[in-house]
């Protein structure tokens, strides 16, 4: 019996088509890559996360205008300046000393070579901070679960570049990728409060952030200890918001909550005392008027 080549071809095509219809729905579930709309996740898979911290470091390099230690310069790995800045802290003297990684020239080659290198420690200012944004964008694309990328990016866009819309969009993207994250919610609340002056939304978002922080660490005392600075930030900002809104009782309640985790509870006590004094004065004022 001799089979016609055309028939064989038709048979093979029919087999292929039948198999394809059967396998296609299953194949979609084999890998998450097909679901992704991010070009980096298609190209690198989970390996892309390795690059994310490098891109985040590049943002810090740009923030220092190229004055940055190489892997050969022995230096303690501390918090990056862009992160410190986004937390609203200035660099301490120790940080500044740590940044002087060059030290004294070791020989004439080193001394002469420094005439061509960047040897001055500076931070970007006057809206030049925008130059760090491409690296933060890339870091977020590479690792959507890297929270700092969103909070740092949003901070610089709000505080230095006057771009609250883009900052909000970036933070919301972060929330979509990390639902209920308290750090991103805190950033969002700060944006509503400081840039949009929307007290109600800021209060709601910060309260949600405080709840999320509590939910996350209620069964993890070690984690709570390590991340208490996050709760400190949320509660102090909520307290300040309530104080500015004239809700002194709520403000005192939040300051008291902040005292439990704050590195400077004395300063918060002063604010509580001040608010209590204001409340007392307000209660006494109608009485004195009646006299």
């Amino acid at each position, binding site marked *: 019996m001799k089979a016609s080549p055309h028939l064989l071809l038709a048979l093979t095509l029919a087999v292929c088509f039948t198999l394809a219809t059967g396998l296609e729905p299953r194949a979609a579930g084999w890998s998450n890559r097909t679901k992704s709309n991010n070009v980096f996740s298609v190209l690198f898979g989970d390996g892309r996360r390795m690059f994310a911290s490098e891109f985040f470091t590049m943002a810090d390099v740009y923030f220092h205008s190229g004055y940055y230690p190489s892997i050969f310069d022995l230096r303690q790995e501390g918090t990056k300046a862009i992160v410190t800045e986004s937390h609203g802290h200035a660099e301490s003297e120790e940080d500044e000393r740590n940044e002087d990684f060059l030290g004294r020239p*070791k020989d004439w*080659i080193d001394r002469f070579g420094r*005439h*061509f290198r*960047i040897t001055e420690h500076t931070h970007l200012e006057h809206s030049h901070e925008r130059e760090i*944004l*491409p690296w933060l964008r890339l870091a977020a694309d590479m690792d959507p679960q890297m929270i700092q990328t969103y909070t740092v990016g949003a901070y610089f*866009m709000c505080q230095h570049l006057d771009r609250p819309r883009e900052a909000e969009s970036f933070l919301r993207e972060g929330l979509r990728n990390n639902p209920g994250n308290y750090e991103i919610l805190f950033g969002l609340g700060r944006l509503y409060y400081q840039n949009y002056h929307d007290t109600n939304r800021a209060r709601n978002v910060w309260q949600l952030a405080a709840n999320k922080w509590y939910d996350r660490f209620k069964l993890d005392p070690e984690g709570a200890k390590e991340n208490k600075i996050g709760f400190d930030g949320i509660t102090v900002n909520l307290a300040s918001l309530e104080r500015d809104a004239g809700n002194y009782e709520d403000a005192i309640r939040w300051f008291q909550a902040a005292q439990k985790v704050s590195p400077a509870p004395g300063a918060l006590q002063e604010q509580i005392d001040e608010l209590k004094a204001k409340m007392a004065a307000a209660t006494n004022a109608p009485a004195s008027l009646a006299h």
Partner: protein
Amino acid sequence: MNTIWALASVVIKELYRRKDFYVLFVLTALITIATGMVNFFHDPKIVRYVKDVCMLLIWVSGLLIAITTTARQIPAERESRTIFPLLAKPVTRWQVILGKFLGCWLATGIALFVFYLFFAVITGSREQHWPWLGYLQAIWLQWAMLAVVVALSLLGSIVSAAPSSTTTICFITVAGILLVGGHLNTVALHEPQPLQTLLYTIYFLIPHLEWFDIRDRLIYDWGLVDWLDCLLATLYAAAYTGLFLLLTWFGFRRKSLNT
């Protein structure tokens, strides 16, 4: 001098007859333009990452053009046996070395000029300012550095018969010096003897090509390097170039040219 210039002009003609330069230039232009077209947070003023990418591509392309053009010069002359009529002109072996060096160095300079012109147009159009003296310093220092690389590749082409091996070894050596050379003293401090002495010896012997890399100054707008330092760096590059050319001549004058 006419002989050296005649030899050099042949090498320069080779640059624009071969496709290497065009391919590298088109790649650099395409990648830079594509990078520049990316929109980050709707801010059209972001420019430093474009400068960074473009300068990196210019440096890689400059090294590739310098090393590949130089590495094939003498092996190609030997393989096609055109070296024999050349030396029978009479052209001395020293003139061949100098002519080939000058040709490769000038060809690299022409390529660099085109690359930097593109860089100036692209970044200037976004930044709306053109620091011409900064560009001039950057191109001059890179060209001076490439003189050392060209001389080193010429020496490599005398030692090794195949251009591919010369290209690979030179590229690894130059990349190693650029990336690690300046840090060898720091590394040596933490190593036990005799490794420490060995690392220090290498540190003081190698040409410190990393001095000539002032990309960061251009990218982050740090202003000009002192002109006296530029002059001293140029003399430093000239000294190493002379040394490598002399070593090439020592190797070439006793070399059998039969393949």
